[in-house]
């Protein structure tokens, strides 16, 4: 299977494993809920961007 990119810091994983060992085989993970989390994060970011044009005044 072709290697695409990394999740986190692969070099750190290698360093830590070399220094302190591993206690299991590498765990391959299917990322569930990635779409839900992306949608949620985009909603938060969109709301933040829109607040730049807010007409609210507090006094």
């Amino acid at each position, binding site marked *: 299977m072709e290697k695409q990119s990394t999740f986190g*810091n692969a070099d750190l994983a290698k360093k830590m494993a070399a220094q302190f060992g591993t206690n299991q085989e590498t765990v391959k993970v299917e990322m569930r809920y990635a779409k839900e*989390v992306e949608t949620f994060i985009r909603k938060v970011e969109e709301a933040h961007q829109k607040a730049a044009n807010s007409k609210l005044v507090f006094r």
Partner: protein
Amino acid sequence: MPCLDDHRKAAAEGVETFLLMPPFSFFDFIETRFGDYDSIRRIFSLARSFHAESLVLENIQPCGIVAEENEDIRQLFPAYSNTGLLRLSFWKRPISTADSISLLANDDFVGYAIVKRDTPSGDASSQWHVFEAVFPKYDHAHNCVPHPQTYHLAVDGQIFAIKGLLYCQQNGLNKACAQVAIRSLLSRILPEGDISYRRINEIAATIKPGFNPQLGLSVPQIRQIFHEVGLLFNDVDYSENGGLRKDLPYQKFAYAGLESGGGALVGFRLTGRNLQEEAKHIIPIYGHTFNKDTWAPNADISYFRIGENVGYVPSESWTSSFLGHDDNFGPNFCIPRLYIARDKVDYVMEIFRPGVCYSGVLAEALALAILYSLLPCLTGSANKWILRLIQWTNKQQVVFRAQAMTRDEYVNHLQALQDWEGNKEKTDFCTFLVNEMPRFIWLVEISTPQLFPANERKLGEIVLDATRKLNLGENFSHNDVFMFARLPGSYLFGGDIVGDNPQFTPVPSELLSHTELSRL
């Protein structure tokens, strides 16, 4: 960088001392000296609550940011005069003469207020207000104020220190609720320890030249002030999109801000018999109560959904009240978390701790995706806590608590942890790890509704790099910010993505079961 606290260290021109035991009456004292002011009454009520036994009252000269404020008001009201400036300090030890002040120590210090009388145009216009006040949080273990600031005050020439969060009140001349709320929160975060109203208003004027500061600040002005002082934030204006009140509740952002030490601003609409028109008010939030027996987490209302089918129990479920100031009424109030109705809240700003680039709310969402993906791959684990965590995850009964930390704070926390059997992490592991971590992280603690409130313990954490902005472009990715997951018995470090599946490298941990939550 110079500290902006000259006004707290102003020389006294006259010193009076008062013993506060009965029959001394604060009601009589306030009415005689000031008149009828809710905020000043609140200051004295706090002093009583802390069992203050003496009051030192000093007449002081305006200096530092107080003198600057007077100059600015005079620009707006040429006949303006600052007709009173008092430093009130409250003490646990009874002292009856100014000579006894030398006997006082920081442990005796209950709190202080600098109260100011402004006369913009003749005696009839005179008004007192609390320029600033600091009282500590109550000793009660259920009151939590992350990262309190230490303020230094001169009393009869001696310097005393007190921890708390600055309260400030508007005067309707050069500052409204927005300016004072911002100063409260920034005094804790900025390296110079305070910000002047002149600077706040000068920055606000860059957005709207010639604006009148007594009319408050708009959201774009508030945002510009935070940009100018180099702080990042997340904010939501609910007034333009009411649907966001349900999907992105203000309580989540307020809680994320206060837990990380930046605090939050909450803006809402006031209605009432005495208001001729709807008013918009904003207050600073900086702490919370922790109510371990609260019923709320058992109810669906406390469950936070990221999407249709995925959610978790946020740690703020055990918060009954936010701690905050209301400049109209005074400092250090408990504001019930569910009291300000969602439909009354128009605005929230979560302020990030300096060095942090994205919201604690987003950190929890990322942690959820990582944990809920990782655990199904660990069903073969021999650790019973992993197996329990899998069961709770299947029911989505997992508690997340996001904390912004420096790497040193995290590694000190990790070194101090002890699992239920008394095991501790290896020192060389912690020493090695600290050199590989970014300066600021999000520590998203993982717990369960049984463990979190009763024992204040957790099963591990997801650690994210807080110093990188999330990639929100077309190729959305949060891969870069993941550091590692710590679960009972194992750390899981990220690695290559093969196909669409990330590979995690397990490294053994000495911590085999639950450990203490972090406390900053």
